């Protein structure tokens, strides 16, 4: 299994903040994203700007994920002010 979490507008688009996906063996973040795309076609527009974290460390679409990992997808951050 793989835990997948979403934040901000991506969470709104997917309609939930987290989900579990079947994962039997090592794969890439890109493959996970492609699976999500089939369920949520609108997510495609985030592909070029999206930030990815695997187990709370920044990663990218080519990073490897293994069963038990937590993958987070989110838009560019916008904390702070001023």
């Amino acid at each position, binding site marked *: 299994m793989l835990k997948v*979490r979403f*934040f*901000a*507008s991506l969470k*709104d688009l997917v309609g939930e903040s987290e989900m579990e996906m079947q994962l039997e063996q090592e794969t890439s973040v890109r493959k996970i994203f492609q699976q999500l795309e089939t369920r949520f076609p609108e997510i495609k527009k985030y592909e070029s*700007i999206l*930030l990815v*974290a695997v187990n*709370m460390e*920044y990663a990218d679409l080519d990073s490897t994920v293994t069963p038990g990992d937590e993958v*987070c997808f*989110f*838009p*560019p*951050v*916008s*904390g*702070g*002010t*001023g």
Partner: protein
Amino acid sequence: MIRIVESKIDREKIVQSVSTPESGAIATFDGTVRNHSREKPVTHLHYEVFPEMALKELEKIRAEAMQRWPLNGMAIVHRVGRMEIGESSVFIAVSSAHRKDAFEACRFAIDTLKTTVPIWKKEHYQDGEVWIEGYGQ
């Protein structure tokens, strides 16, 4: 002091946390909620956070700053949830023997925070709301 809080930011307490007898300067940055954005009136803001990762990223900023400049202390506190116009959403305090290092490290901290710390701002208007994503970059 590295914190994510939901209640009002206590500036005085943060400044005190970096105050040391060796410091001749404390530089602070106070990020406040602005009443307009791209010529549109803003009624209030809402910040969402990925808490565990945000704390890790804030710690990284402090660690890098402490390594790059001769600082005596650095504190970063970010508030999340709903905030009204004029309230502080983020407060940074940096102490050093001389002002140059404190100013530079403070600037580094807020600029880095805006690109690496997973916190998102949603602006609310009279007629709706919009996620501001990547605005700081």
